[in-house]
């Protein structure tokens, strides 16, 4: 025991920079945007300083490692931010927004590069696991299909949220400089969560994204609804995080490891404290259930979705769900696979409850935003079908669903933001009456998104629903799929009610004097982009998307 009397030198670990590059891009751009916003009149000097340091660092790397691609890109990015700052030094928010959009685009680019680099290691269809088990950085980061696909989903959501936010935040006078950095940090947390291979990372990433979203939900801080949304989200979020953490602690207690893959191995070889494992699983289901808004744990959803600034609501509904489901999948399929007999029935019941309760509660809503909040709950239920199937088609279906839902959600909340901007108030269904006559283009867009949410054949929503239903039937959960169809029919009722109000009913008395809609360039671009993606995935290229998702569900890093 005197062996270690002398102090061994610290082994500096190898950092797998490529594995964490999307997070680095997102966080780096967030900090840069924050810095440039804070610098005020010295913005240009600050930007030049950043450029100088980055260029020096890139030069050093280029000289010492004789690489040219990575330093070249870093130098180019540094030059780019300096050029942008020079052009828009008097428009700090526009600069932030541009940087944020470029950051999201850059993260998508990096992830695509990762996809190309890693998908070479395809495994055969008979491989035992289809969620990545190997991982990098001391077992903290998983680079597998689910992680990469979800990263792209999250970054696309962010990319659409930025233009939707700009005019909206301007109009509501909440355009503080911290808005875009927080959006980027939230996305950082989501990509981290999607790619975390260790329970410690799962917890930290959930907190990163939750803290950012608590703040963003309360960003319109003079609006009482927004404050209330922040408070409710915070208290329930903190409570659910504590429950999740207890579950993680129990997993660590049973298996002696916090690594998800190692925990899975320990569970499969365990003759063991089943009671504790089941308790851990129950607590984890509750924790993830809160984050993904599954029914008994959905109480916060409508209030938070209604109170938060509308573009943020769209982002929350889409991206949080994608990231949380990715981690949910990795934990349950990766670690708890040997205990599948115990959690599949529970999730089956939760899926059924979620679909039915979400759809039924949405029917009685009058506020459109709140109705879409409940519909988001129902959609979490449809995603769960793919989850419960626990097969490749299921994982692929979950990924497809979440990507398509991202655009449906952002598109519909984007149109609402556009209307709120004109009307200066939250939209009730009555306010939409006759919209189709006066403003046919936005009304048509909203109708497109709603039809897609309803899953009418020919829309992207149908492709998504078909993917998960197919997986459910393959896995023998036909009853669940029947429940899902019933729920879809109920849901179609309230989506179509809105469409009827827009196109079949007259403008009510007294609102004829409304100003015409003046959509900003950003909002039009965001909504049009979402609509274009919807149409493309719904009609022309559904197979491309499904193929990509199948591939993502197959390859293991």
């Amino acid at each position: 025991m005197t062996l270690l009397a002398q102090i061994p030198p610290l082994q500096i670990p190898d950092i797998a920079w490529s594995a964490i590059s999307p997070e680095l891009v997102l966080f780096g751009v967030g900090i840069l945007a924050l810095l440039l916003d804070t610098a005020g009149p010295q913005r240009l000097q600050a930007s030049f300083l950043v450029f100088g340091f980055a260029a020096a660092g890139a030069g050093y790397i280029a000289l010492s490692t004789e690489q040219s691609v990575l330093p070249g890109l870093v130098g180019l990015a540094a030059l780019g931010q300096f050029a942008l700052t020079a052009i828009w030094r008097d428009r700090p928010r526009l600069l932030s927004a541009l940087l944020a959009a470029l950051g999201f685009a850059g993260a998508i680019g990096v992830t695509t590069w990762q996809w190309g680099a890693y998908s070479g290691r395809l495994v055969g269809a008979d491989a035992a696991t289809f969620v990545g088990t190997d991982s990098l950085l001391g077992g903290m980061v998983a680079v597998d299909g689910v992680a990469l696909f979800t990263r792209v989903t999250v970054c696309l959501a962010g990319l659409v949220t930025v233009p939707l936010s700009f005019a909206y935040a301007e109009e509501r006078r909440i355009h503080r400089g911290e808005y875009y950095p927080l959006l980027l940090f939230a996305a950082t947390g989501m990509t981290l969560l999607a790619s975390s291979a260790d329970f410690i990372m799962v917890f930290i990433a959930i907190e990163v994204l939750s803290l950012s979203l608590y703040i963003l939900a309360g960003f319109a801080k003079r609006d009482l609804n927004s404050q209330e949304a922040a408070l409710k989200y915070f208290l329930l979020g903190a409570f659910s995080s504590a429950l999740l953490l207890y579950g993680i602690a129990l997993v660590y207690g049973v298996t002696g490891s916090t690594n998800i893959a190692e925990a899975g191995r320990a569970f499969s070889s365990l003759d063991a404290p089943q009671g504790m494992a089941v308790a851990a699983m129950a607590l984890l289901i509750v924790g993830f259930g809160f984050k993904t808004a599954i029914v008994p744990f959905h109480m916060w959803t409508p209030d938070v979705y209604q109170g938060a600034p509308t573009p943020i609501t769209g982002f929350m509904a889409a991206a949080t769900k994608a990231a949380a489901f990715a981690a949910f999948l990795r934990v349950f399929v990766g670690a708890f696979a040997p205990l599948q007999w115990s959690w599949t029935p529970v999730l089956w019941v939760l899926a059924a409850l979620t679909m039915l309760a979400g759809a039924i509660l949405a029917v009685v809503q009058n506020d459109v935003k709140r109705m879409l909040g409940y519909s988001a709950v129902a959609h979490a239920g449809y995603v769960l079908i793919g989850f419960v199937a626990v097969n490749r088609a299921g994982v692929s279906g979950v990924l497809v669903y979440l990507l398509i839902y991202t655009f449906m959600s952002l598109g519909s909340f984007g149109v609402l933001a556009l209307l709120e901007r004109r009307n200066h108030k939250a939209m009730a269904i009555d306010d939409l009456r006759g919209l189709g006559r006066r403003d046919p283009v936005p009304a048509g867009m909203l109708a497109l998104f709603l039809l897609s949410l309803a899953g009418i054949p020919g829309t992207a929503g149908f492709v998504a629903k078909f993917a998960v239903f197919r997986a459910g039937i393959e896995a023998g959960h036909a009853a669940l799929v029947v429940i899902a169809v019933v729920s879809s029919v109920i849901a179609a009722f309230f989506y179509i009610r809105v469409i009827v109000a827009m196109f079949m009913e007259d403008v009510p008395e007294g609102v004829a004097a409304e100003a015409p809609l003046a959509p900003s360039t950003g909002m039009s671009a965001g909504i049009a982009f979402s609509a274009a993606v919807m149409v493309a995935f719904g009609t022309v290229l559904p197979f491309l998307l499904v193929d990509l998702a199948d591939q993502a569900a197959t390859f293991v890093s």
Partner: protein
Amino acid sequence: MVALATAVGAVLAQTPVADPAGAAASTGAAEFWVFWILAPLSLAAAVSMVVLRNPVHAALMLVVNFFTIAMFYAVLEAQFLAAVQIIVYAGAIMVLFLFVLMLLGVDRELPTRVAQIRGQQPAALLLGALLFAALAVGVAGPFLGADSACNAPPDAVAAAGADAQPCVGLAAANEEGNVRGVARLLFTDYVWPFEVTSVLLVIAAIGAMVLGRRTERPEDLVDGRGVRKEPLRARAARPTGSTALDREAAE
């Protein structure tokens, strides 16, 4: 209290593990007594924190609770955590809580505007008790038997016989000192979570700033130059309703 302090002192003196083998053999009894003295104290503090009507008293009870938890860390061979718990939690965080309570001036439970849900407290009590029953059965079961007699006094280990797991504790991991052991791991295997935690702290700082700022210059709430200059007047002319959005826009 003197006995308690002595016992705690004894544990703290031993566990830095200058002589791992000796410490592992001798901590058992002291740990046992420290636990049985502190656990009721800690629980009493927790329960009174939850039920006391005066929030300031409740906060002080939480301080007591955090202190006892720090002692538990020391007993469980986590000396660094014990120090952090006292400095960060019992110190900084609790001061923050008390500061906010004083700032709000709510040194009593305010009367509610709406009626409380009837029977909420009994329901909460029932739920808590059920949760505890489930957790206790799940958690305690596997570790109650003789073969998990870890950290037990040496005679108990001997009584358990050859089936008993050896009580190694963290002696080996803590050999070069608990702080150094933690630091070594933190900067090697756990360097990525460590960095991500710094992201979290940045977010928390921004959040406190965004939400806590009381007065804001109007130009900070919109984009700087190049935006329409007239909306303020146009806004005033528009008939305003009573919705929150309107109220906000009017400000």
